[in-house]
């Protein structure tokens, strides 16, 4: 599984920087959508099935079930044994993987181009004929608990992030961990997984995205053959669960074994409307702000806090303008240098925002973001996988993948004043959430 947030965190540019991405599209009779993006540079194909079902669709007591089902999807169907599909994909020379995010669950294969039907046949089968036995579930849930220990429980920064999300989102399900609370995993049964599968794995809730050295019409024909007859069922209405306005800062401390303190701080931030228009100006202003703060090694946070003053060991900022759940955050995180307190580091980070409010950003800085985005768009063309991933993410979150075409233009339009405006409006003390890691000695075990 994949924490989408972290993906957005680290790479401000590649997230979204691919023009002329336009794919061909059909909708099958059962409502399943199929998008194809041809790229004939190498004799390979990437095939992904995206389900509009992620941790934000879970209910209390069953957190983590979206991700658990992702694991169970490898455990056999009416006609195949557990693990058999992995063997089939491997024997076709393929690579496969799957990931669960807050907004979606996706399954993919990378294959030599003639092997595309291997993937389609398998995905179509497990979309309708998955078998979840109590015995397989009881083994796999242990694997998932090990995954949680490895991914979160033994990683202090991951624990900070988990706490941060639960503080900043009290009503919205983005506050729950994608991997699930341990106690929910301990009490989950195979029936919970079956319920999940029966609620969300309808073809009408899925999108197939194929990219690579393929013929679009042939892919459409294959998609019809394999997926077209799978019966659809009604997907329950989703509630927006919008986050109430925050009135006053929220602070927490997390203690965990380690040596270095760390802070993660952030503010609720607007997301780009599904029409690509609503909140556009603000969303792009925040996007450019993040580029100016932390897009490169000479961006403001690293240049000022790590290099010039040596107040921090590491710094960064992140924001995702895209979200299926309609909520997002702007975040900054930092590890202080030895003699710097977290209290002061928080001040320094806020000062960076304040400096922009007072003095604006320079044209040079704005131009650098534009240059990086334009170059990044060309570089992204080297990766078919990246294109397929982007189309799938956007479409599953409820956007048209075509909004990418306007990305550079919208980046270019952002002014210093726009950036000052969003900071003043959204990133103020009463909207702050901050979690501090207080490292503890390892002690005796």
């Amino acid at each position: 599984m994949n924490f989408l947030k972290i993906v957005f965190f680290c790479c401000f540019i590649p997230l979204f920087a691919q023009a002329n991405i336009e794919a061909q599209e059909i909708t099958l009779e059962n409502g399943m959508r199929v998008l194809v993006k041809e790229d004939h540079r190498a004799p390979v194909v990437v095939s992904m099935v995206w389900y509009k079902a992620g941790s934000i669709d879970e209910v209390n007591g069953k957190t983590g079930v979206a991700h658990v089902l992702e694991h169970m999807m490898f455990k056999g169907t009416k006609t195949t044994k557990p693990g058999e599909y992995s063997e089939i994909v491997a024997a076709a020379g393929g690579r496969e993987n799957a990931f669960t995010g807050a907004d979606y669950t996706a399954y993919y294969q990378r294959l030599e181009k003639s092997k595309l039907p291997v993937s389609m046949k398998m995905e179509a089968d497990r979309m309708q004929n998955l078998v979840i036995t109590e015995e397989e579930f009881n083994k796999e849930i242990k694997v998932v608990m090990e995954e949680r220990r490895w991914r979160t429980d033994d990683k202090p920064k991951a624990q900070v992030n988990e706490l941060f999300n639960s503080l900043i989102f009290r009503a919205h399900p983005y506050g729950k961990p994608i991997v699930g609370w341990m106690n929910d995993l301990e009490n989950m049964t195979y029936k919970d997984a079956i319920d999940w599968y029966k609620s969300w794995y309808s073809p009408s809730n899925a999108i197939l995205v194929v990219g690579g050295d393929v013929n679009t019409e042939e892919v459409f024909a294959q998609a019809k053959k394999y997926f077209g007859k799978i019966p659809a069922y009604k997907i329950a209405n989703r509630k927006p669960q919008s986050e109430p306005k925050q009135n006053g800062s929220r602070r927490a401390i997390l203690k965990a074994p380690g040596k270095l303190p760390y802070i993660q701080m952030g503010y609720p931030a607007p997301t780009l409307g599904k029409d690509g228009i609503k909140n556009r100006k603000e969303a792009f202003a925040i996007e450019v702000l993040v580029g100016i703060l932390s897009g490169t090694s000479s961006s403001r946070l690293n240049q000022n806090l790590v290099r010039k003053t040596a107040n921090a060991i590491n710094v960064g900022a992140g924001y995702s303008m895209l979200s299926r759940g309609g909520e997002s955050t702007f975040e900054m995180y930092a590890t202080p240098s030895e003699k710097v307190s977290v209290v002061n580091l928080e001040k320094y980070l806020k000062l960076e925002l304040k400096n922009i409010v007072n003095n604006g950003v320079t044209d040079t800085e704005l131009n650098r973001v534009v240059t990086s985005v334009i170059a990044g768009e060309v570089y992204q063309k080297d990766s078919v996988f990246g294109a397929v991933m982007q189309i799938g993410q956007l479409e599953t979150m409820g956007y048209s993948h075509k909004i990418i075409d306007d990305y550079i233009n919208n980046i270019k339009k952002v002014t210093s004043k726009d950036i000052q405006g969003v900071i003043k409006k959204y990133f103020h003390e009463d909207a702050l959430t901050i979690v501090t890691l207080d490292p503890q000695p390892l002690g005796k075990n």
Partner: protein
Amino acid sequence: MLIKTIFISILIFCSNFAAAKVDIQHWQSNNGARIYLIENNDLPIVDINVDFRAGSVKDTKQKNGLASLTNHMMVLGSGGVNEEDIANQFIDLGAQLNSSFDQDKSGFSLRTLTEKRSEAIDLLTLVLHEPNFDSNILEREKKRYIASINQSETMPGAIASKAFMKALYGKHPYALSDSGEVKTIKKITKKDLQSFYKNNYSSNDLSIVIVGDISRKEAEDLGNKISLGFPENKTALKIPLVNNNKAQEIRISHPAKQAHLYYGAPIIKRGDPDFLPLYLGNYILGGGGFVSRLTQEIREDRGLAYSVYSYFMPFIEKGPFQIGVQTKKNQVDQAKKIIEKTVAEFIKDGPTSNELKRAKDFMIGGFPLKLDSNKSILEYVSMMAFYKYPLDYLDTFTKKIDKISAEEIKSAFQRRVDMNKFSTVIVGSE
């Protein structure tokens, strides 16, 4: 299912197959650097990777971390231009500069748009030829190194990995930590960096790989331009042979919820004729993600772990064969027994014919995936270039794989993989 991602990256790193048709042009620069060019005009991009034999294996115990710091400091200011301006010049061109570092090598890569290649290559050349090694920046970066070393000494995976290399390599420099120790980093001076750079960044130990939209003529000029800034140095420190270390079992306590287990020994170096049979065999034993025996036993059948794997990581000299798993504290001894049994059975009996067929199908059928982008071609050919693989390696790879028999795999494992010499490190057992 992150586990699969982990496996894929390991495959790219230490396996070496390859590609449908990658037309590699190869020549030597005027002073002995090895240059490789793969012309490809589909996209207006040029990728360049430059590798030196200047990894942590060149460190001494007293100044451990020097090789890494040298690599790191090289992108922080050159030719009197400060770190901020250098970074901004790359950014203003839309170019990306990255550095990489491991036991054997120190690498630098540049990605640029074709139209900006000339300026970007000039900048790269400046970075490589005239590092400032500024004293103030060095002091600042040393503090960052020390903080990160201190931190890693509290992390169970990092503790285990370090103890494992120490157990396997004893006094050999492969036992040294990539990024040094707090004590040794403190001692490193600007002079040390300058002399390390002078002694280890030499043209005859340099490989340059260029992929993308650039002509042979330009590539030749660029190869000369970069390599001529480095002296030929035939007396560079030879990497010592790896002696067999005694098997050890090391247990280190830790409050983490999971115990981390590493198990293995130094086995094989680059270019060893047993590599392919061992590699193919290991896919079946523990390299092949969900379809490996170790994953079947540990994860699928018993739910003991999220990730269990094995791999051969050949270096210039003998690199480790390593098995790793993380599991709840009270399960680690059970996991260890199952791993030992699985490895022992594999060494004794080799693969079944069915397993062998599926492994070959995977390797051969998946061959085009290895080289499906300029970036992946760059990484792959850079590995070949650095370790001096024959040029037809990619062309003959699938044929060689296809010919390997179950008997050859069994024989290679029985001759080379001796479990009596395996060391075990467990961090965080009960």
